[in-house]
């Protein structure tokens, strides 16, 4: 499965409004075409993802950032990569996070 195919699946997960995938150096590998300010979003995903990976080591599963006036953000470690997700309003963070993690787990299973 190509990266483009993987990310097209992520976009279809319930509650996902946008996504960005970064490599271990913070370089943007892919993001949805209509994402506003991907540079700002990528900096946050990379900084927080790296920092939380340092705290939680291999046990870090995901983080959610709740916002007062904008859509919430989820960050997932994916091997040496980081996946940032912009979540739709009206859906609980953990529900979308669980769906994304289930998809990533299936993907990891397919690769091994």
């Amino acid at each position, binding site marked *: 499965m190509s990266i483009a195919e993987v990310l097209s699946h992520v976009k279809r997960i319930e509650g996902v409004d946008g996504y960005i995938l970064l490599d271990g150096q913070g370089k943007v590998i892919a993001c949805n075409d209509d994402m506003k300010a991907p540079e*700002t*979003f990528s*900096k*946050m995903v990379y*900084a*927080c993802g790296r*920092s*939380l990976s*340092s*705290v*939680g080591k291999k*046990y*870090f*599963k*995901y*983080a*959610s*950032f*709740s*916002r*007062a*006036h*904008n859509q919430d*953000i989820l960050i997932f470690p994916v091997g040496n990569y980081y996946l940032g997700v912009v979540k739709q309003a009206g859906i*609980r*963070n*953990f529900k979308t*996070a669980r769906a994304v993690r289930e998809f990533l787990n299936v993907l990891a299973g397919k690769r091994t």
Partner: protein
Amino acid sequence: MILFCEDCGEKNDLDPAAFAGGKAVFRCSVCDYPNAYSISSYEKECPSHKLTDFLDAIQPSSGIIGAFFYHEEQGVIEQKMPQLLTRNDIDTLGSGLARSYAEGQSSCRDLTKMAVVISDKYFSVFKLSTHLYVIVIAAGPGLPDKILELISILEKEGM
């Protein structure tokens, strides 16, 4: 009043009356280090009884594993965490979570809460003031309304 030694980080329980001038001067009861630092802003920001009241109030809630207050300059200032964790463990955890929150906030000014799942534990991080955070660890997602109300009160008081 509890103050931490700048050298070894150990708690020292001291009489607040001795700090009338806003400066704490004391020898650490553990390592004998001669501490001397300003406490006026610290004490104003963190009246310890409110923090312990909060910890006492939330601990009986089902699914709550522990909680602590982390100050960016002072480290862990109050905590009720599982005993298997050392003060250094909790300090390291608080430091990493506070740094991540600050990084998130630098991009998202309207950040209200960060939740991190490590292993199967849910760490909810709230920023109460410029340097002070409260971190609540639970076995599942979401916190009881009672705890959210108490955190909201702390936030409004600008702790």
